[in-house]
């Protein structure tokens, strides 16, 4: 018996929904392990840590509800404001020193004709050196006595030795230089990949019009990269705000707290307080989380803009 038109339409809808559900179940089953791991390792600790920030903690044993007491202790700590300033200085210097070099390198590699791949590999090489090896290497380079490579160069050129990381005015800059050296290869590749996507006809037209390298970079390359540059700008803020590796391995937060950051202090609260400041560690973590959450929301909005462009 032939079904009526309405009944045929309804049957199709039910069938489509059924098929869609079948496909989604498969998808969710494949995602399930990842979702569970994210729950255990990321979401649950984040939520629990945020909740426990409002409780008195004895090591990792939850005590009574204390409201904002942990936050008060964090903010009233004698080093909170200096470390907040240090963290902002890290962000500032990371832009001054670390923001432009990957862009410039990407443009240069895009422009060269010969040894393009070799140049890419050489610039990317620091990224594959194990982190701790990089820190130890640079600590040795910065050594304030004659064992330091930089001081050997200075003295051979007739200058005096310099204190480098022992100078509180240079410590953050020195650490930013090290992290730029480590990270610019990966960022360079990101820009380079976007440059590869730029229309070659635009470059040809610019060349025909007599535009040199700098002119082409300004009129063709810059607009092609603008959305990515903005994206990297936000990512850099988020990443640099969480700086801990350099201070922990190279300076111990010194000299006299000159390189200590909020993330470094969180580490001290969590692991070097004999369990007495775990609540404050969680409170500080929540403060940093809120700051970075605002940055991340901005990041997602920008990411959407890039995807719309492409």
């Amino acid at each position, binding site marked *: 018996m032939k079904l009526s038109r309405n009944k045929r339409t309804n049957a199709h809808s039910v069938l489509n929904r059924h098929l869609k559900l*079948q*496909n989604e*179940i*498969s998808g969710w*089953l*494949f995602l*399930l*392990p990842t979702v*569970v791991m994210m729950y*255990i390792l990321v979401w649950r600790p984040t939520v629990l840590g945020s909740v426990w920030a409002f409780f008195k903690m*004895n*090591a*990792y*044993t939850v005590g009574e509800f204390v409201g904002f007491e942990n936050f008060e*202790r964090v903010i*009233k*700590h*004698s*080093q909170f404001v200096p470390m907040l300033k240090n963290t902002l200085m890290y962000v500032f210097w990371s832009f001054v020193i670390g923001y432009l070099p990957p862009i410039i390198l990407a443009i240069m590699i895009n422009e060269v004709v010969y040894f393009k791949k070799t140049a890419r590999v050489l610039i990317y090489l620091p990224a594959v050196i194990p982190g701790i090896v990089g820190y130890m290497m640079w600590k040795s380079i910065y*050594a*304030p*006595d004659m064992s330091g490579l930089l001081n050997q160069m200075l003295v051979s050129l007739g200058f005096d030795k310099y*204190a480098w*990381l*022992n*100078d*509180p005015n240079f410590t953050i800059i020195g650490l930013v230089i090290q992290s730029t050296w480590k990270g610019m290869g990966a960022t360079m590749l990101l820009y380079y990949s976007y440059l590869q996507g730029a229309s070659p006809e635009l470059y040809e037209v610019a060349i025909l019009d007599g535009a040199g390298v700098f002119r082409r970079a300004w009129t063709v390359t810059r607009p092609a990269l603008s959305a990515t540059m903005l994206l990297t700008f936000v990512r850099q803020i988020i990443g640099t705000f969480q700086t801990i590796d350099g201070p922990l391995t*190279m*300076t*111990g*937060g*010194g*000299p*006299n*707290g000159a390189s200590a950051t909020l993330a470094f202090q969180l580490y*001290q609260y969590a*692991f*070097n*307080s*004999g*369990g*007495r*400041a*775990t609540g404050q560690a969680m409170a500080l973590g929540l403060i940093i989380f809120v700051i970075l959450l605002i940055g991340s929301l901005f990041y997602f909005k920008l990411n959407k803009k890039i995807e719309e462009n492409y």
Partner: protein
Amino acid sequence: MKCNLKRLGAFMLAVVLLVCMVGCGKNASDVDEQGRTIVKIGGYPEEGNEFRPAFDERIAEFEKNNPDVKVDPIKWNFDLNTFYTQAYGGQLPHLISTNFTEVVPTARARIVADISDVLKKHGYEGMINEQIIDALKYNDGIYSFPKGAYLLGIIYNTELFEKAGLMKADGTPIIPKTWDELVEFGVKIKEKTGKPAIAFPTTGNAGGWIFTPIAWSYGVQFVKENEDGTYSAVFDSPEAVAALQFMKDLKWKYGIVQEDTLVDNQRKKELFATGGAAMIIDSGGNVTEFSAYDMDNNKVGAMGLPAGPKKHVTLMGGTAYMISADASKKQQDAALRWIKAEKFYELNDEVKKNIERELEEKARNDQLIGVKPLTIWSQDAEYTKYYNEMVDKYANININHVKPFNDFVADCPAEIRPEERICAQELYAILDKCLQEVWTNKDADVAAIIKKANNDFQKDYLDNY
């Protein structure tokens, strides 16, 4: 069909992963299949470590003498960064060892068990060195068993001392009686050898740790307990200013410390072991570590700390065994029996064997044998006498190089003071910063630095204790 296979594959994968995670959380039993109490002992060396065979022998011997116990050795060593996380996660072995400074925090956090009754049952009441026992107590309960104690002293390079004319013909050093005399020695060493006289750390809390006895010798008191049970920081004083000024002068007036200010404890030892400095301040027992840098053991000597303007005092610290609060009474008992085999007050064959085994291992690994450490028992205890005799038997250096330290320990002319019991690590961190400040800024205002440090310690830590 394809869709069904895909779903089946996804489902199987999800189940496998979930089962793995469930399996991870499973609790182990307290007894094995033979009904023996399982006790987890931390400190098991890694595969290939030179001390592992000796540890295995000890396990076999212990299980033979204690047939109701099964030892489960765990590769675990104390690390402050992960300790409390492991404790909360129930991942600690039953028997752990930590520094003396962690006894009070771990007892407060109820991570470790009160073993007063277990100690009494095994006859240890009144046996432990009185100078050490106070460091192990919390609220009248005893929460730890001392594993080893140390006194801070000066470890010196005999070769550099020789070049500076500071060694006597019999191999003993000329001993500086005061910190000012030590500075004079330092200036001589710098002139004659070109090397920094002393490597002094300022990061990782090590600077504060070593500066503490120097400050005490200047008459500094760091913390005072108030009548209401709270604590006050009291080191904003002329004595503390004088002590920190002394440290500042080491760098800017005499130029006898290393150039790099940001040195941690490990780097300090590395500088000494590689001939980069003539002296360090450290526990006398740490003389065994320098062979790892291929330093000739006969270039290493040790002596006691000199006196300050107000006092002659040295710092005592140490490591202690503690038993996890998660351990059952049987496991606590088994853990203490394990400790007994190593540290029994009265000697028995098993203890003697363990002592000789330990020294034979050190000799095999070319570690310095000659220093007689501070004992956890009284000096005239049988254990102490036997241990010292064995050290003399197995000594592999000119014993006169370390005789001044051994004499210092045996009959200490200095006041022996344990580390600060309240917020010690936090105090050391603040003192680290003081040292960094005076060594990176020639014009640093010492009095202002001490005042700020005192106020910060009070506000950030003691007020919240």
